[in-house]
């Protein structure tokens, strides 16, 4: 396996500094510039498995197969290993693993970071990996001392013997050679955890505060050119013809080549490439001309007809004797992930191999896609995973188009190239969170309890037509498209969840919390509507219907209690509540909200309670809840990708707005101590926020916000 490729200057500096300590694992040749290549490693490092490299200077390198996109996985995965290994945390260095089956996500069967799954899918494996390395160190020391291993123990990077002898892991590197890693290892009792469950400091903060961290965008390899691609202005469009004369006349532009997804302008740098693209003349053959106004009408009509049934309990059509009935519609728009780092990829295609430098969530797919384009074997394609400047799902794509473009351009020009997306390219690049329409029909009995609940979702599927279709589609329903709707935690005797597949005119994709991002909005606002229709407190109403969901009910109770639910607030403020399970975690949020004199929503505070089972790093969990709330508020207040004549109307951050610091609320997170099943933390904080805010706005204005983004003046809308 190849773990010796990186372009991280910081790592170079670290390894260089460590060289004085003894064994130099390998070294870089900085003369090559930022595309640093390493020579093969010296033989005497201890590699007990694919994840750990123990060096003679006592440093321990962890090779992380999960991509670091801000969620803290480099630190969390290292905590799992370091704890069971009894390593010294100050000696841990983490690096991106290469693309290799050793690093396949145990749950996905490929190297893919997503689904908030890293922590719970590695909880067993990486602790065993650490424990196995610990056992090797103990056996090596026992061998060196010629004593039984049973008399040895390990602590903070040392093996200790009952006689008082002590030796560091680094000094055991040679003795450890040839020892077979044990497969049957005993894991720690959680009460003995030293790093797991503790707010250990992130390993990547220094390089993210001094400019040294290398993101995909920052990669430069020898001979590399920069390309921007003119893609069709309409999804499904194709190049009819192009004239590159004017583009080639721009100083710095070297070549103009057509690839599958458009026309690439290749230059010595980004500015020249961009100017060249502006001068490029392309005639397009348009695809279908989507119009958002028409699409809204169509979806509304579809929502009035029965869809494919995702879930049926009782019979919603046979309900009699309802005291009250509600029939309302909710809607959410297409959304762009808008990660801060625009998409990019460096590819160097040669006859004997291909190197790809990319901030990707899906190494295996990129590797396969590049192999397909180049005719190389997958193992000849080396994926160098860089830091990801945000991702939110946009960098986990089943067609691997970000890498594919760069590979095609590099292949065409026979040189290394960095394909860069402008912000406009990114905003208009598709792969959006779906536009969705929701028909909600409910009825209440005389006691105020729900008698029936129909939730009909209309939206596209990004699963159908992919290798994941078989897993996702059941009885004609894309279960990912209706996730969250089908797990209604409230007791309703007659329940039906339906789905209509929307117009497949735009490429769509998972975005942070995926289906839950819209189903929870409809579901948690609608239960609030039922509560008010029943004349009940919305917290107590929810709680009375959740007997079969104790973990969810508990977070609801904790959030309500910590937020002071029912206590007085300053004039003009109100609370709204929402609770939702996703990615195996349970979250409730209470939003404290006011509305300004001009009708603008101000969210002052969000109290969040989460039960994600055992925790690896509580500070990371808090950070994810804080970030999720802001992410969700951006969607609630601003997020909207819309179409006119097939063209995306939005362009950049001036018309695709992101929440800023002056609007951001205080987020207070309470983590439930739990030994129950472990869940994810990257996504589940998102779904409850928008409904909690909308429910608070209703208290203040008596207007139900049933459409995202919320209007700029919430006093006027129903």
């Amino acid at each position, binding site marked *: 396996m190849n773990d010796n490729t990186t372009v991280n200057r910081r790592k170079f500096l670290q390894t260089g500094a460590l060289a004085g300590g003894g064994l130099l694992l390998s070294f870089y040749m900085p003369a090559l*510039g*930022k595309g640093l290549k390493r020579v093969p490693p010296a033989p005497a490092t201890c590699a007990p498995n694919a994840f750990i490299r123990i060096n003679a200077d006592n440093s321990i390198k962890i090779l992380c197969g999960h991509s*670091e*996109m*801000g*969620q*803290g996985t480099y630190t969390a995965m290292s905590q799992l290993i370091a704890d069971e290994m009894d390593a010294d945390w100050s000696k841990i260095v983490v690096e991106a693993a290469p693309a290799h089956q050793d690093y396949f996500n145990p749950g996905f069967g490929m190297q893919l970071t997503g689904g908030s799954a890293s922590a719970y899918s590695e909880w067993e494996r990486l602790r065993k990996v650490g424990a196995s390395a610990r056992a090797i160190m103990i056996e090596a020391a026992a061998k060196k001392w010629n004593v039984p291993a049973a008399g040895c123990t390990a602590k903070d990077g040392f093996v200790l013997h009952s006689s008082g002898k002590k030796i560091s892991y680094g000094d055991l590197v040679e003795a450890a050679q040839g020892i077979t890693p044990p497969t049957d290892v005993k894991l720690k009792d959680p009460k003995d955890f030293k790093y797991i469950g503790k707010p250990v*400091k*992130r390993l*990547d*903060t*220094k*390089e*993210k*505060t*001094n*400019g*040294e*961290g*290398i*993101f995909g*965008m920052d990669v*430069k390899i020898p001979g590399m050119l*920069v390309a921007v691609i003119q893609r069709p202005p309409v999804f499904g469009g194709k190049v009819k013809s192009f004239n590159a004369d004017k583009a080639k006349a721009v*100083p710095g532009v070297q070549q103009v080549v057509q690839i599958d997804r458009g026309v690439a302008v290749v230059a010595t*740098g*980004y*500015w020249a490439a961009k100017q060249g693209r502006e001068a490029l003349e392309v005639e397009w053959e348009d695809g279908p001309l989507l119009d958002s106004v028409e699409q809204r009408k169509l979806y509304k009509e579809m929502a009035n007809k029965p869809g494919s049934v995702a879930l049926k309990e009782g019979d919603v059509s046979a309900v009699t004797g309802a005291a009250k009935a509600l029939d309302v519609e909710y809607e959410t728009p297409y959304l762009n992930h*808008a*990660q*801060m*780092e*625009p998409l990019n990829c460096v590819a160097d295609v040669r006859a004997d191999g291909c190197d790809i430098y990319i901030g990707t969530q899906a190494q295996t797919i990129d590797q396969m896609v590049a192999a397909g384009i180049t005719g190389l074997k997958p193992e000849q394609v080396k994926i160098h995973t860089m830091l*990801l*400047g*945000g*991702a*939110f799902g946009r960098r986990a794509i089943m067609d691997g188009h970000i890498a594919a473009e760069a590979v095609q351009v590099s292949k065409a020009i026979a040189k290394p190239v960095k394909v860069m997306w*402008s*912000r*406009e390219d990114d905003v208009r690049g598709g792969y959006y969170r779906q536009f969705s329409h929701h028909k909600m029909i409910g009825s209440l009995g005389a006691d105020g309890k729900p008698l029936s609940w129909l939730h009909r979702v209309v939206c596209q599927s990004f699963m159908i037509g992919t290798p994941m279709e078989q897993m996702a589609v059941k009885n004609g329903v894309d279960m990912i498209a209706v996730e969250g709707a089908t797990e209604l935690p409230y007791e309703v005797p007659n329940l039906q969840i339906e789905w209509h597949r929307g117009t497949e005119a735009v490429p769509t994709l998972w975005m942070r919390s995926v289906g839950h991002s819209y189903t929870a909005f409809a579901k948690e606002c609608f239960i609030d509507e039922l509560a008010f229709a029943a004349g009940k407190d919305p917290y107590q109403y929810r709680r009375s219907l959740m007997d079969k969901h104790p973990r969810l009910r508990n977070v609801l109770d904790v959030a309500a209690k910590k937020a002071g639910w029912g206590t007085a607030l300053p004039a003009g403020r109100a609370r709204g509540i929402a609770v939702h399970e996703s990615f195996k975690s349970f979250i409730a949020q209470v939003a404290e909200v006011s509305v300004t004199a001009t009708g603008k929503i101000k969210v002052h505070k969000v109290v969040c309670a989460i039960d994600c089972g055992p925790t690896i790093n509580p*500070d990371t969990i808090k*950070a994810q809840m*804080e*970030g*999720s*709330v*802001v*992410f969700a508020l951006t969607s609630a207040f601003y997020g909207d990708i819309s179409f006119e004549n097939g063209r995306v109307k939005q362009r*950049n*951050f*001036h018309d695709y707005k*992101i*929440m*800023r*610091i*002056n609007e*951001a609320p*205080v*987020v207070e997170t309470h983590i439930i101590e739990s030994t129950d099943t472990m869940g994810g933390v990257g996504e589940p904080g998102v779904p409850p926020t928008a409904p909690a805010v909308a429910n608070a706005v209703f208290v203040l204005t008596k207007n139900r916000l049933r459409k995202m983004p919320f209007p700029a003046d919430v006093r006027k809308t129903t």
Partner: protein
Amino acid sequence: MISLKVNGKNYEVDASPDMPLLWALRENLELTGTKFGCGMAQCGACTVHMDGNAVRSCVTPLSRAAGKNIITIEGLNDDIAQRLRDAWTAEEVPQCGYCQSGQIMAAAVLLREKPHPTDEDIDYGMAGNICRCGTYQRIRKAIHRAAKASTP
């Protein structure tokens, strides 16, 4: 050739005078700590100091930057910078980290002008810098912490 003074060093850059400073920093000088986010002064990821002011290098043409004293995240090494980095570390601010160079560059100017900023000062001084990971609450705490760490 355009003469640039960046982080105390003089450079001659062969580029068009209308090219934004950002690309000279990132591609010609290989100072990639300054990030590209939007290209139209909307997000602040490209923030650098020019004669002590925070500017958006993505819309600052080289003709305007020539001869000015430019500081990037790599060259930000004064007492304020140290306090900010310590505070950023203590509060565990960065998530993906892509915007944080720009955040720190903006915060450094804020603290120079307002050594003890109020929440309103922070809102005003930092609203030009987007963080899509939503680290705002921690940025606020870290700026207050850095301000408190100053020697009176």
